[in-house]
């Protein structure tokens, strides 16, 4: 299923496709890019896209975006995810960048935006805290004004790839007396500042993706405040809207389904009764993807006509993550007894893994994908959003 494309858009699609084929770095094609690549390797594709002017599809032209229509942005997203390219760091390009060009001042724009585009600065997100997960408005990290600085104290958690980060954008409480949402500010903090400590959190798949970030008497120049003090909640919500737009994950699910089909073909003989069951389960999840893709295309077509999609992002997040969890479970089941094995992290080349290559990441993907229905606003929260905003309940 494809969008009906104009000849120009079709030519654009072909150009993107050819560009990926020619330019995507071979060394980024590893078993599990999310965990197996070094920071430098992750940045290879970022730099290539930057040189091409394609690094920030969402951004307006004046800040370095390519000036694409909604349709072209969608085409680009579709082609890159279908090809399995590793997306550029979302925290930099998709999240903090738009906050800075929308709510930041000129000095902030000039300082930060070019370095986000070039990949020179790696950003991480200081939102969640031990006591503030779904209920983000209760963040307790304190920022107290002291002359032309803020003194920041607090504990951020689930901070993805903070171990690589140069900067962290934080929700901090500047007005402890105000109502939860109205006392929050949006502050940019240099990770090299004295008092910033990063501690790894190892997850159930054995990988190190997320971290605790401790902030102890960190002195942050007041010029790093985005917008107005205590208006941070508005910026935070704006950012979360961007986070959830691309969570349907059609390209990724489609790729994993085609790999799953190959695994089933190789692992389960046709005369095994399990074969038919897998065929049926795969068909079911393929139909789930088809229905979600059709919904996504319908929403994109509406947006191209200027219609506000409302909380469609919540629908994409719920179904996209449930579908992908289902696919990783089926893949884990398909490799049978080899599903007992799991790679050790950090990955080393001489560590033994049994069974065929295609099964080597099945266990860790299966385990890791449990996070999908939790992070970025749990699926329970997303359902609440739809109940309230769409159904009026």
């Amino acid at each position, binding site marked *: 299923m494809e969008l009906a494309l104009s000849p120009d858009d079709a030519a654009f699609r072909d150009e993107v496709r050819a560009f990926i084929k020619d330019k995507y770095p071979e060394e980024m094609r590893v078993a599990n890019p999310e965990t197996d690549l070094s920071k430098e390797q992750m940045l290879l594709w970022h730099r290539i896209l930057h040189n091409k002017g394609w690094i920030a599809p969402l951004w307006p032209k004046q800040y370095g975006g390519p000036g694409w229509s909604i349709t072209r942005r969608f085409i680009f997203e579709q082609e890159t995810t279908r090809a399995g390219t590793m997306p550029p760091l979302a925290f930099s390009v998709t999240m903090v960048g738009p906050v800075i060009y929308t709510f930041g001042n000129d000095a902030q724009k000039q300082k930060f935006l070019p370095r986000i585009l070039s990949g020179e600065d790696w950003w991480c997100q200081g939102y969640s805290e031990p006591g503030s*997960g779904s209920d983000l408005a209760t963040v307790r990290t304190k920022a107290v004004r002291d002359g032309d600085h803020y003194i920041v104290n607090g504990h951020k958690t689930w901070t993805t790839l903070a171990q690589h980060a140069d900067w962290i954008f934080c929700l901090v409480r500047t007005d402890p007396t105000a109502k939860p949402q109205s006392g929050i500010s949006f502050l940019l903090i240099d990770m090299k500042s004295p008092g910033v400590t990063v501690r790894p*959190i190892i*997850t*159930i798949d054995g990988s190190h993706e997320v971290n605790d970030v401790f902030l102890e008497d960190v002195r942050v120049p007041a010029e790093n405040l985005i917008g107005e003090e205590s208006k941070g909640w508005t910026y935070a919500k704006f950012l979360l809207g961007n986070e959830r737009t691309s969570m349907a994950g059609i390209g990724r699910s489609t790729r994993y389904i085609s790999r799953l089909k190959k695994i089933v073909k190789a692992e389960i003989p046709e005369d095994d009764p399990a074969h038919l069951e897998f065929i049926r389960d795969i068909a079911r999840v393929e139909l789930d993807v088809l229905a979600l893709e059709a919904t996504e295309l319908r929403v994109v077509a509406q947006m191209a006509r200027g219609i506000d999609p409302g909380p469609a992002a919540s629908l994409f997040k719920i179904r996209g993550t449930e579908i992908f969890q289902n696919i990783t479970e089926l893949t884990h089941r398909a490799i049978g007894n080899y599903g*007992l094995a799991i790679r050790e992290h950090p990955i080393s080349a001489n560590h033994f893994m049994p069974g065929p290559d295609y099964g080597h990441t099945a266990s860790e993907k299966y385990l890791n994908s449990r996070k999908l229905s939790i992070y970025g606003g749990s699926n329970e929260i997303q359902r609440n959003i739809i109940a309230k905003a769409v159904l009026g309940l």
Partner: protein
Amino acid sequence: MDIQFTEEQELLRSSVQRLLRDQYDFDARRKIVASEDGIGREQWAAFAELGLLAAPFSEAVGGLGGGPLSTMIIMQEFGRHLVVEPFVETVVVAGGLVEQVGSDAQKRAFIADIIAGSKLWALAWTEKGSRFDLATVTTTARRDGDGYVLTGEKTAVMAAPWADYLIVSARTSGHRHDRGGVSLFVVDRRAANLDLQSFGTIDGRRAAEISLRGVRGELLGKEGEGVKALEACRNHAIGALCAEAVGAIGELNAATLDYSKTRKQFGVTIGSFQVLQHRMVDMFIAHQETLSLMQHLSLSLRDDEAGVSRLASGAKSKIGYAGKFVADQAVQLHGGMGMTDELNVGHYFKRISSINIQFGDPAYHVLRYAQLDAAA
């Protein structure tokens, strides 16, 4: 139907509970898993000391005669503490096979050492193309003088890196999928021409790929009757794994309920949200059903009832799906914390996932349950 434990059974349960509480908390387990061997030799010795390794064996072979009910009691507690040591592999599976089909000499030679805790065992039945079918065997055994010589590959053999002995299924006649023609052999794990490549499993245990290139083996049971013996042994293994899963489910439910009463978001405990209340009610129901089914299966195993094989498959499937549901939801309701290596919830999740592969996944067993009905 609700099992009323005898005084002896109550004593067994409380003594296992005490031992694990003293020696097997989550930190102790973490140290065992991270150690070079990945197994607690001291804990195993303590299990032997307490008589756990003797519990299910009949008195005739030196055991305590506790049968499947004592296995159920022990494994439920082991499931609550995520015990990694190979009780199922050594006592229930290998010990069970030797007791069931071994010669008197073999029983004398092997069972006493199992009970004493001095020897560990593993069962090597899975092969590359076998998936969960006990009869799909390509490893061959050729008669050689008064023994046999085995050649072939076994995959994902749980606990093999720890084992002193392996029980290996090998073909003495027939073709790849034939039920007849498969025999069982005792093989010294350190025998010449046996190559073993270990790897870590998702649940913090150890398994291995095993290559046999002319390895000497000693026949266990009658030639050609290996599948029949394995089927009976699998029923008992399933009984043990189901009890372990039920123990894990109980702990996950308790932890989730506790968390939901203390974790606050939006100014209230998350347990006050109806959607989570209903989820936890379903988890509670799953625990009740699996507990009942576990008892039902254990009694049927004890009495060696005619339909026990079908019931074992049914329980493996039902408890497997229920365990998966509870584990998924326990992680979900713990939020990010449920994803961490630090908290025990994720480790129960992984053990349940592993149980759902060992001796056949829930989808395999629900089909077998249906097929055994059609065949009856």
